[in-house]
């Protein structure tokens, strides 16, 4: 993923995250959950679960493009660069798995 596509991913994911963050903030202002259970039920409702997945998919792809750009600018030795990118990629995949697990079974 380079050039135009990486740039588009970064812009689109940023807009996604902004809209979802605003939606959640407004929701909590207008209709704050009264208890942990109420919050939990809301988070686990199908619509919000899908939204959670979209948010984290956007966050992780945004992070991949952004951090990779920083790595490309500042880390020039190939071996070191590959190592850092591998660590980044593995951590992102692991975090994505964790998010999936939370959404699917309802707890961390």
């Amino acid at each position, binding site marked *: 993923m380079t*050039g*135009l596509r*990486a*740039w*588009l991913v970064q812009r689109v994911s940023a807009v996604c995250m902004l809209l979802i963050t605003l939606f959640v903030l407004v929701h909590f202002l207008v209709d704050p959950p009264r208890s942990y259970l109420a919050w939990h039920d809301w988070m686990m409702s199908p619509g919000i679960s899908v939204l959670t997945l979209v948010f984290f998919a956007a966050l992780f792809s945004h992070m991949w493009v952004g951090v990779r750009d920083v790595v490309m*600018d500042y880390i020039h030795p190939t071996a070191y660069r590959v190592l850092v990118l591998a660590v980044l990629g593995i951590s992102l995949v692991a975090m994505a798995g964790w998010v999936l697990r939370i959404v699917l079974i309802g707890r961390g």
Partner: protein
Amino acid sequence: MKLSVFRYNPEHDQKPYMQDCEVELVPTDRMLLDVILRIRFDDGSPAIRKSCREGICGSDAININGRNGLACITPLKGLKEPVVLRPLPSFPVIRDLVVDMTRFFKQYYSIKPWLINDEPVPERERLQSPQDRAKLDGLYECILCGCCTSQCPSSWWNPEKFVGPAGLLQAHRFLIDSRDTATEQRLDDLNDAYRLYRCRTIMNCTEVCPKGLNPSREIEKIRLMMVKDSV
């Protein structure tokens, strides 16, 4: 007027150093270049490129109090003293305020800064409507002084791979020229990880352009052209 000038003569200086001096102002002094040309050190005057002395040739781009500009169109009024003069940041220094522009022009040539048109040559000139011609405003005025590219952090990190704001502004100049038929190839050439997309919209280029151009916006327009092209 007090000045502090970057000095470096590779023939006998181990390292660059700053040298202070004071120049008496005369009533005809208007621009910084007027004063620079009267600086006399023990070993002569500092080396500087200049030619037209009116902001057209782009030779005397230097770093003035930390900010790139053309000495010939920088008014003396409002300059904080001592005026610190350095060569363009990130460009290799040849001597004093004179830098090596080779890499800068290599990037410029890489975008093929000439009209490409494979259609048969018309009997007279290739005509352009006034509306199409107006699209080149804000682009053709670039004098390639290097102020923008030299002040661009993305160019500092990847000078060999990132075209830089000056080259990209020129790229847009040919991309939107109605007489140019190589738009597709030009866009393809820029669509990789480095040539265009190292631009992080820092906007130093727009901030320092002595001609008041907006390379940052032109780069954004190239990106939008690419988006439209790929849909």
